[in-house]
């Protein structure tokens, strides 16, 4: 999952990014509204975490532009130090999906981000099922036929992403964009390697290959 964190408080941004990354998310940072809007236009993020008090283009304006007709739909979790009801209502009315008032608990923030992504993928249950494979997105564990399967963080992230988009053909580029950071070489066959690992651990039939298109997990 790839997230965009638009937050001008560099200290806070660093903590949140580290917490999210330790949960297997890939996180991009933007320090102001302008940069945030630019990045949101470039990449199809799975969710955006948006601070409302930003220098220059403020959070409300960012939200408004993210929700302009024709813009790519992306769930937005608003983070703010303002807890007034009018601010909250305004944020939600502008199209925010959820709201967190600073200071908040990291666990709550993580839970809300996960819930937001599930809802936007139309998979409200925290347990995803693919054939006889069950994915617990909260505990981040995978079972096959009742027996636990050990996956690395990257393998798990790939499986979760494919399962969230079950029934869709997911291209390699999209997987790069959402799961792997820029540190990995886009032209390497890293995706094929991880898919191979998953097939070995879960059975060859879980992930189908559509040659020339990408991968598919059946719902």
């Amino acid at each position, binding site marked *: 999952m790839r997230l965009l964190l638009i937050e001008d408080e*560099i200290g806070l941004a660093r903590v949140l990014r580290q*917490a999210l990354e330790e949960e297997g998310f890939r996180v991009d940072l933007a*320090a102001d509204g302008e940069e945030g809007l630019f990045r949101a236009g470039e990449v199809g993020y799975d969710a955006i975490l948006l601070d409302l008090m930003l220098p220059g283009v403020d959070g409300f304006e960012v939200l408004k532009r993210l929700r302009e007709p024709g813009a790519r739909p992306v769930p937005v979790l608003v983070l703010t130090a303002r807890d007034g009801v009018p601010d909250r209502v305004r944020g939600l009315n502008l199209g925010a999906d959820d709201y967190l008032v600073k*200071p908040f*608990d*990291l*666990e709550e923030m993580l839970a809300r981000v996960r819930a937001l992504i599930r809802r936007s993928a139309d998979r409200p249950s925290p347990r995803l099922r693919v054939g006889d494979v069950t994915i617990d997105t909260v505990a981040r564990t995978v079972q096959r036929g009742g027996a636990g399967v050990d996956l690395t963080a990257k393998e798990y992230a790939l499986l979760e992403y494919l399962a969230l988009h079950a029934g869709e053909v997911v291209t390699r580029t999209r997987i790069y964009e959402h799961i792997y950071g820029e540190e990995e070489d886009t032209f390497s066959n890293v995706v094929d390697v991880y898919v191979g690992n998953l097939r070995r651990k879960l059975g060859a039939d879980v992930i189908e290959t559509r040659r020339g298109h990408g991968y598919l997990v059946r719902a």
Partner: protein
Amino acid sequence: MPEGLRLLPRSLRARLLLWSATILVLVLSALVLTLRHRLRSSLLEELDAELRSHAEAVAAGLAPMADGRFELDLPGGYLRFFQEGAGETGAPYYAVWSGRGALVVLSDPDIRLERPGQPLSRTREDWREVVVEGPGGALVLVGRGTRGLQDRVQAFSRRALGAAGLALVLVLAGGWLLTTQALAPIHRISRVAAAVSASNLGQRIDPGQMETELGRLAETLNDTFDRLQAAFEQQVRFTTDASHELRTPLSVVANQAELALRRERQPAEYRDALQAILEAARRMRAVVEDLLTLARADAGQLSLRRDPLDLAALVRDTAGLMAGEAKRLGIAIELDLATATLHGDRSRLQELVTNLVANAIRYNREGGRVTLRLRTRGGVAVLDVIDTGIGIPPEEQALVFERFHRVDKARSREAGGSGLGLAISRSIAEAHGGRILLESEPGAGTTFRVELPTG
């Protein structure tokens, strides 16, 4: 006032009515008494004139005889006049005394009369009598009962009192209606004023239908409510801003600690986390201290020492303390200080100069310059802090002294500003009886001018 000693009722309406009733009763009583007296006098005058003409007629009919007696020869009309009246209450009568004082004629033998000494008009019990001089020193008296006259005066008094009573009732009823009408807007005003509270500051009195004076009162009250609302909203904004300013570093502290404790980590990671927490805590401390300073200034409790001090030396020392940071950012500090001495609080003035110089360094361009110029003009020390930065746009200039207002938020926070520096500087200048001004040209730089009275 103790309840027992209160003579007037509390209600304004009752007081107004009581007062107007009292005044009206006094005025009407005086009027009735005066009229009654006038009526009585004029009726008596009329009666006297009538009696005198009768007396003169009787005197004309008197013929003194040689033996000292008199012969009375009255025209027939007069005889009838005296006979007709005889026996009735208030019947007319006459008497004649000779020059020697003997009673010569008395028309009604039942009457006991004293001889008057001279001609006169008098009231004797229920009778009015007029005495005139007749021929040969004789005195002629004609009298008549006044019962009829008194009855007329009584009847007039009754009618007048009745009319006065009616007038009183009408005035009281009218007064009741008028005061009800006049007090209605006051009730309206007090209802609205009672409804205005911290959670409901938007209510206003509608002065539309009110009389001039009350309309003015309503407008005055509305103005007061406006000012209250503005002050309250500013306070709310300030509190919101203050809590925002504290929530952000608080988030860093809480989330950093939470993150560090989520799993076992390397010592270096703990050290980094603690470092970040320490920085956030320092920022909170700076904000809290500044808030406290401002709260004291607001309450007029910014305790100031009044020590004689050399402002030029103070500015030079402060600039020296900040030279390191200026150098790091490639900014030159120039001093142009004339002597200026004043009485003031050294540490507060140091804070003021530090704030201004820090801003001048922070918002400067690379390789820029900060000039500190001190002059004394007509009992006022004028310190100019001139930078060569980007300047402050005109629409922002009035706002920079506002609490938590930041022209460039990211830059200010990076440099560790609390957003309260200029607000505090202004409070310090004002507590010294001075002021702080700002002149800025976008692109060319900004000059903050502090004026402090010397001596």
